């Protein structure tokens, strides 16, 4: 199994642990990831507010680069996953935009056809690799560990392709395969406010606080997430939350880190040392 890999800026920066754990887990599963040659920033949500056409062109360049190989693209970052998919759809639906973007890409020597499939690691793990194969590699099940699964916004919304929009369950399936328990967590798709924490701290903090507090109340020892921005936001703001509201101290980890632990990969290899809130509870018993 081989895929193209679009890490995005976050996985090279604050979300480094996501990349480390993702590569480790996929490597253990024998899935090859080939990084897209000279990819650029997808534009994320911010650039859409500046220039729609350029925003599509930015993502378009990545898609055009990906089309040179006949492989599906894996985009682990929620924002990248959404933007790349949104671009495919937007260009297919708006002929005028399509014309402009294709022409501009041509000027840069790039050819966009709109043929590539952009997928999320959750989708690939459950639907391509399969839970059976994953279960077979679980050496050190996460028995007795309870997590709150947190999907955030941009994975199942607005295009629910591999899971339900209101109540996604893919992560639960994976964590169950890893031997862990999942608490009922009705906030699993509620926005964490990550894109606002830097600009409107009072707003972002409250959203993050609500999410963490509720997960704790429901008996989770950590929040398991799929998004580098959510992880950064929920992990990095706990200091300020302690000042403004109360001490919460809940580790925020990536689902790939939990899978990796259960597969017997070391904590440092999985970037589990990179959390600002230490992940001791998660590491208990190993």
């Amino acid at each position, binding site marked *: 199994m081989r895929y193209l890999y679009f890490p995005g800026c976050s996985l090279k*920066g604050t979300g480094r642990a996501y990349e480390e754990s993702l590569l480790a887990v996929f490597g253990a599963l024998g899935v090859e990831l080939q990084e897209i040659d000279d990819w650029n920033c997808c534009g994320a949500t911010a650039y859409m507010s500046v220039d729609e056409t350029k925003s599509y062109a930015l993502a378009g360049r990545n898609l055009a680069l990906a089309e040179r190989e006949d492989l599906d693209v894996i985009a682990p970052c929620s924002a990248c996953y959404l933007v790349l998919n949104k671009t495919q759809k937007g260009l297919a639906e708006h002929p005028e935009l399509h014309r402009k973007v294709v022409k501009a890409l041509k000027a840069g020597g790039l050819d966009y056809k709109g043929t590539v499939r952009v997928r999320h690691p959750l989708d690939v793990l459950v639907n391509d690799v399969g839970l059976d194969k994953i279960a077979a590699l679980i050496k050190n099940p996460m028995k007795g560990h309870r997590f709150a699964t947190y999907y955030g916004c941009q994975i199942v919304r607005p295009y629910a392709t591999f899971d339900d929009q209101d109540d996604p369950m893919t992560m639960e399936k994976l964590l169950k395969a890893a031997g862990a328990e999942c608490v009922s967590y009705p906030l699993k798709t509620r926005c964490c406010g990550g894109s606002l924490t830097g600009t409107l701290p009072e707003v972002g903090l409250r959203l993050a606080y609500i999410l963490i507090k509720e997960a704790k109340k429901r008996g989770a020892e950590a929040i398991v997430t799929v998004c580098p921005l959510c992880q950064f936001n929920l992990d*990095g703001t706990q200091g300020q939350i302690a000042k403004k509201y109360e001490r919460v101290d809940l580790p925020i980890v990536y689902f790939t880190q939990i899978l990796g632990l259960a597969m017997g990969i070391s904590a440092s290899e999985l970037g589990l040392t990179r959390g*600002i809130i230490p992940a001791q509870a998660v590491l208990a018993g190993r």
Partner: protein
Amino acid sequence: MALEQTIKYEAERDRDFARWVMDQSGGDNLRHCIQCGICSATCPLSLYMDYTPRRLINLAREGFKQEVLSSFTIWLCASCYACRVECPKKIQVTDIMYALKRRAIQDGVYPRRFPIPVLAREFGRMIFLFGRVSETLLVIDLFLRTSWFKFLSMTGLGMDLLRTGRMSFLPERIQRRAELRQVLDALDAEEKKEASR
């Protein structure tokens, strides 16, 4: 207490603005809104908004341009798409918010206390220069431009990030920056051509 006139006259409506909104990608369903308010109810940020998303949709549809473009609402939208998914009329609220943000930046009417437009612009500048975004630089740059005090309170987090190896002061950059430049320049040229027409 000062008395304020709240009646609106038809002359205050900007019909071209309403048409413009409906012409933007995602704006085509706007007319179908039945004002049920599920967008506001599902929005995690509506509690901070001066107009709830539902009210904003109606203001835009009716052409109250001034109210729409200077509202906090559009800048509070975090693009979580919850409203879009719940809307019974499939109105693409998030995309409408994007369009309104662009228009507000273009018209220079966004509320000054919101640094979000600055972030958006800096984000664009960084992509234009390097092709990738290094979050650290972006955050520092942003805070230097908007507020020194906030930057100072954030330094605690900065230290944490340095400690855990998640912060880098070197900008990430792509190899073929010229190629990206050509693409973006081509779009600028096209836009100029259109504007001159």
